[in-house]
């Protein structure tokens, strides 16, 4: 029974990370109709930035802020130069462009920082907390806590703020938005930067508990794609639920089925679900 809860808690902690990255993917798809392969690279770069800032002896919370801010800036640059010129052209072009960006960032990271994994050691992050016989690393609790806070904040942002409402409008009908004077390119930039920021936040949060290496983002982003597809492209709540489902399934499958095929379970779950529900479990929603 303890084992069961241990696996569940691990699944939830990883699910939080998957969900953060996947939500970024899904809103970018909902609003720009772009599948962003570079989303995982923001996660990876943010972990490196956290690492670099931490090396300068600055406190970890500040490192998180700097990492997220850097990712937002990079996100804005990528959107401006590699996505915006392609909006309204053939649907494959933006995907290929983000794929190219992903390759540049990933291999660029290898060139700059070598493929060797780096680690940050923060004492408090690695503190073991015992709750009813289940051992939880402090940082994992923080991850879950911040993820939940973030999703509530995001919900508020999209539902209540002017920008959030404009985002919802753009995801439903771009043409109508142009007519009533919503600045669609500006909303697209904000969305892309938001996605990059979410991913970056995930990367900064895992930096103290995971090895930091250049290919940490690509495998993660593929699993997050699985969550996005299962949740129905552009459906935020569906994506979050799917991300948690995938992470929990993965956590149990690794323990009870096979460690070797660790990275395959998420895809198998996705494919099985798509066989029965081609539009995902939660169906396609109009708008975000």
């Amino acid at each position: 029974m303890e084992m069961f809860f241990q696996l569940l808690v691990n699944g939830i902690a990883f699910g939080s990370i998957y969900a953060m990255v996947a939500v970024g993917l899904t809103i970018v798809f909902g609003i720009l109709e772009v599948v962003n392969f570079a989303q995982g690279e923001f996660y990876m770069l943010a972990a490196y930035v956290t690492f670099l800032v931490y090396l300068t002896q600055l406190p970890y919370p500040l490192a998180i802020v700097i990492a997220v801010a850097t990712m937002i800036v990079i996100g804005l640059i990528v959107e401006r130069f590699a996505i915006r010129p392609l909006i309204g052209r053939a649907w494959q072009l933006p995907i290929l462009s983000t794929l190219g960006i992903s390759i540049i960032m990933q291999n660029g990271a290898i060139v700059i920082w070598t493929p060797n994994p780096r680690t940050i050691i923060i004492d408090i992050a690695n503190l073991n907390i015992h709750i009813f016989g289940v051992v939880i690393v402090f940082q994992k609790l923080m991850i879950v806590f911040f993820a939940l806070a973030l999703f509530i904040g995001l919900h508020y942002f999209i539902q209540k703020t002017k920008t959030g409402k404009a985002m919802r409008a753009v995801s439903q009908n771009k043409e109508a938005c142009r007519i009533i004077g919503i600045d669609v390119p500006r909303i697209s930039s904000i969305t892309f930067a938001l996605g990059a920021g979410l991913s970056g936040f995930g990367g900064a949060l895992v930096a103290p508990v995971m090895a930091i290496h250049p290919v940490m983002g690509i495998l993660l982003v593929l699993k997050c794609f699985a969550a996005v597809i299962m949740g129905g492209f552009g459906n935020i709540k569906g994506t979050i639920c799917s991300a948690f489902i995938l992470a929990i399934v993965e956590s149990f499958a690794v323990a009870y089925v096979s460690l070797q095929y660790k990275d395959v379970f998420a895809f198998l779950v996705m494919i099985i679900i798509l066989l029965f529900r081609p539009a995902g479990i939660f169906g396609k929603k109009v708008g975000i």
Partner: protein
Amino acid sequence: MRISRLLVIIAVGIFLLGIPYFVTSSYVMHIIIFSGIYIIFALSYDIVVGYLGMLSLGHPAFYGVGGYTSVLLVMKLDVPYVIALPIAGILALIVALIVGFPALRLSYHSFAIVTLAFTLIMRAVWINWVSLTNGPMGIPGVPRPTIDIPFLGAVHIETLTDYYYLILILVIITCLFIYFMIHSRVGRALLSIRENEVLAETLGVNAFKYRMIAFAIGAFFAGLAGSFTAHYITFMGPEFTDFYYITMLLIMVILGGSGTIHGVIIGAIAFTFIPEYLRITPEFRDVIYGFVLVMTIIFMPEGIGGKINEIIYKRRVRTG
């Protein structure tokens, strides 16, 4: 016009047949043979990306299926190479039908991701099914092909020249098949689906069926390319399904000009030679590749082949 065309074909034919006689460097010969492999690989990919208009990220998996199939057939079951080679293609084709049946019903974006997931699953299987594939170590010592030709006896493919002629034959078969397919009713139907699916269906074209056909034919030729590669470098391993190959294929097809045969051939040859002469680390090379891909997409999405077609079309219009 007809005669000049014939002369061009004869000249090109003599040139291609003569390559082993005037290329003295065995290193260059090796790259030329690899160009042939990538021409087949890229052209087969272009059937899916260019003519079908679907972004498949599962093509390297079919290359791997072909390679492993023929290697295992030849090494474990003593099947002759002439039989193992087509079976490699056919098995890749069957796998494509199995994958395509659910995947080709999905939206374009889901299709891209599901095919990528398929590549990763196949890769995990090849790495972990050690008893069959020898895992990440790969299978060394793959025998060089022996081809039994009636009345001539067994031909052993051993030297670079032998391999060159074998790949030349395969490249010609691939080019002719794809050329005929594109200019047949099948090609017309494929084009119609890419341009306007609703209208194509209204005219009686079964879009799903044609997608399956194109996806499977693409996989068949990828399987042939995989089989040839394994028997040429006498090794088969899971690294043939690296993500790197998807990037490279995309560059060859997109920069070369998706949906054009000549463009893709140019792209494949160029991007087999360029990395060999760029004496830099693979990572730095990949950074450049990514950059080339993004720049091509932004500034020349129709590719070299598309540009050539445009020039020819303009000239034809001008001269009436």
